[in-house]
């Protein structure tokens, strides 16, 4: 288990974070290099150095820096360097190269004092940018980010993750599922008792050596998991260069904190656009419901279709092409009580026949090659309506 900060250490971390934030607030107008030096010069105990460096990095990331206005440094450099090159070539033992003479001649040409030229020569470098706004966040929030970053680093090494979550509001749960889908994670979900959902998520090490991109997507999902009222997370990880198998646990409860709004996957956005272009009686919108079959599992549709002439709406879930098993879990949901009208979109690469849902009148499978077609979906929706 990753050791959480003890109360003492946490208080000390908040104190450090507060000190760093204060340095930034006092340092408005200074350069990035000066701010970095000022943070690095803070006296911390040897045992605190690591957390101090991490907090310093988070503080710097939250600062707003900008280049000083005035002379354009690239144009200034061109003028100075061209004169310098000519002066070097023309130099002789009797009249050696003189930096001062080059700066004076450049100053005359640009209408600037030579000392100002030296000052502005590299004013566009990142380290020379000036702090215009200190971070607008509390020391506690900064320490929370640090703790979250620690756990995210562990998830990059995960073989599998099991997360039990409880959300008192359906909105929080929907937010979580939308995030999971947007990040294209491979997951299964089952409803446990007392409103707890168990998410089993494949980790980046699940089949081959870690896939960095997938690991990053998993790590970026952590804030959405932590936005639930209760979270109990267990991960199997392969740690270090020796890939040592370890178990990792993390629990959190308390008021949820969100990191921005959930977004739809690109394929769903594209499908919505395609549908808007169709001359059809159906209207599509992002679905907001979670369809739960107690004791069996849940389904989180992507879209909800309503017909202009009324009738039951039809849900649509796009399953992608990674998990054949996911398709059969949806079939089982329908078999065992999912009563809403629903259409599942499945890639032909999963080699599943549309006939597997022939037994149900209110549910259907749409198998597509390449990308889903709005026209084909319309036909399936019409069939479900009738």
């Amino acid at each position: 288990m990753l050791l959480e900060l003890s109360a003492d250490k946490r208080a000390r971390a908040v104190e450090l974070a507060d000190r760093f934030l204060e340095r930034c607030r006092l340092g408005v107008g200074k350069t990035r290099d000066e701010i970095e030096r000022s943070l690095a010069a803070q006296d911390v105990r040897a045992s605190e150095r690591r957390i101090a460096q991490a907090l310093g990095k988070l503080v710097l990331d939250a600062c707003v820096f900008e280049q000083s206005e005035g002379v354009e440094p690239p144009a200034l450099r061109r003028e100075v360097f061209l004169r310098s090159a000519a002066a070097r070539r023309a130099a002789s033992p009797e009249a050696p190269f003189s930096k001062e003479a080059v700066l004076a001649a450049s100053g005359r040409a640009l209408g600037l004092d030579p000392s100002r030229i030296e000052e502005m020569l590299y004013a566009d470098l990142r380290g020379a940018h000036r702090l215009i706004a200190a971070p607008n966040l509390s020391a506690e929030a900064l320490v929370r980010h640090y703790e979250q970053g620690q756990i995210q680093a562990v998830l990059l090494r995960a073989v599998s993750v099991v997360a039990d979550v409880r959300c008192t509001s359906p909105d929080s749960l929907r937010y979580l599922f939308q995030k999971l889908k947007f990040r294209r994670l491979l997951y299964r979900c089952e409803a446990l008792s007392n409103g707890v959902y168990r998410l089993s998520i494949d980790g980046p090490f699940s089949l081959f050596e870690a896939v960095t991109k997938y690991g990053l997507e998993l790590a970026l999902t952590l804030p959405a998991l932590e936005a639930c009222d209760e979270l109990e997370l267990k991960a199997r990880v392969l740690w270090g260069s020796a890939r040592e198998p370890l178990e990792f646990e993390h629990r959190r409860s308390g008021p949820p904190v969100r990191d921005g709004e959930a977004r739809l996957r690109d394929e769903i956005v594209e499908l919505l656009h395609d549908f808007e272009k169709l001359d059809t009686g159906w209207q599509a919108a992002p679905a907001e419901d979670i369809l739960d079959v107690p004791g069996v599992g849940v389904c989180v549709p992507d879209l909800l279709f309503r017909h202009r002439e009324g009738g039951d709406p039809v849900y649509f879930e796009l399953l992608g092409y990674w998990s054949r098993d996911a398709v059969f879990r949806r079939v089982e949901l329908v078999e065992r009580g999912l009563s809403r009208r629903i259409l599942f979109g499945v890639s032909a690469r999963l080699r599943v026949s549309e006939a597997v849902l022939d037994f149900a009148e209110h549910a259907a499978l749409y198998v597509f090659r390449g990308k889903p077609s709005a026209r084909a979906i319309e036909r399936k929706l019409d069939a479900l309506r009738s």
Partner: protein
Amino acid sequence: MTTLSFASGTLELRDVPDGLALPESVRWDERTQTYRAPALAYFDIVRLLHRSNVPYTDAARAYAELEARLAVRREPRPFQTEALAAWRGAGGRGVVVLPTGAGKSHLAVLAIEDRRRATLVVAPTLDLVRQWYDLLRTSFATDVGIVGGGSHVVREITVTTYDSAYLHMQHLGARFGLVVFDECHHLPGETYRLAAELCLAPFRLGLSATPERQDGRDALLERLVGPLVYRKDIVELSGAYLADYDTVCIEVELSREERDEYERERKIYVDFLRSQGIRMDRGNGWQDFVRRAARSNAGRRAFQAYFRQRELALAASAKLAMVDRLLDQHRHEQTLIFTQDNATAYAVSRRFLLPVITHQTKVKERSEILERFAQREYGAIVTSKVLNEGVDVPDASVAIVISGSGSVREHVQRLGRVLRQRGNKRAILYELVAKGTGETFTSERRRDHAAYR
């Protein structure tokens, strides 16, 4: 019948006959009820199916024979012909090592024409992507695709960066039969290797002047690209195909103040090493030092002392005085000045009012600096590591290495920057070393190459 298909950088195998001994990289995937392997295994799997007389449908391969024909035929140099033959002899998979300026790009053109398959060229920087784009478009008189730097145009010959390759290979990995990895010593990195693993191209060519990596991961190149099939070093080509050259090591003295401070800081650093029993000559010496230094204030002080004594040696004032003299001495020649770090590069730029190129220099300004250098409007450029590779540097005949790492590769690359042959040119590389400091050892390490003997 067994079916092979490509899915997001992996290969799916269905209906595999019982008892067929699949390569080690193939795993059973419960989710899809198929065998799955990284796309890299395509060559091994197809060969296995052939040798085992297993009938199969190849739905994975999505590349075609090259339609474009070589439009510009340049007579290859003898060593290029030898390298191509060696690569061909290895089944079109392998690494070729040639010095900077020896015509690695032309060898790649010959390899593309030899295999005649849709080809992806992967290069480390956008500058190199542009250079490859120009070369391939001219050589094959065809439109060439670019993936990266805001473009996403895929054609039968396409050029991309390592960054874009690993991001997009899960979609592009089936569309090329030949992949050329330029400066292939980058490939074994933790993420870049995905560019090779998610791609099924059976033919692969790795190009480098110095494939060895300090972390030893160059050993991965054999799996990702193929074996080392051909190698020629600078000394074997200088005179005939590269410019003749001299290397001069100049030792400079620290000033009295610098020497006093150097000895003081070095003692703090060395005393800490001794007190902790840290041996820097061991493989994990540096990691051990960093770990232990983090545990105490004395360690932290030793860590600071290490960097300060190093900085005093690398940027000794006498070195800058020597640079001034060398700039005067070679004021009618084109000169490249190399430093170990950006801070020194900018300090040299400010002191001598010379244009500098670092990773912070914007592409537009960098192009302008190189263009003015080529036109001889600028006589010298300062750089840290950016020009070691990846940028087509106009002809220069003088290199001044103010400071550098102990890397043989870096030092050889820097020398290679002044070896492009032109008339009777004789290039010269100066290496400035602070006498009686740890830098002398660093210098010996980086000169441990035939080019410096």
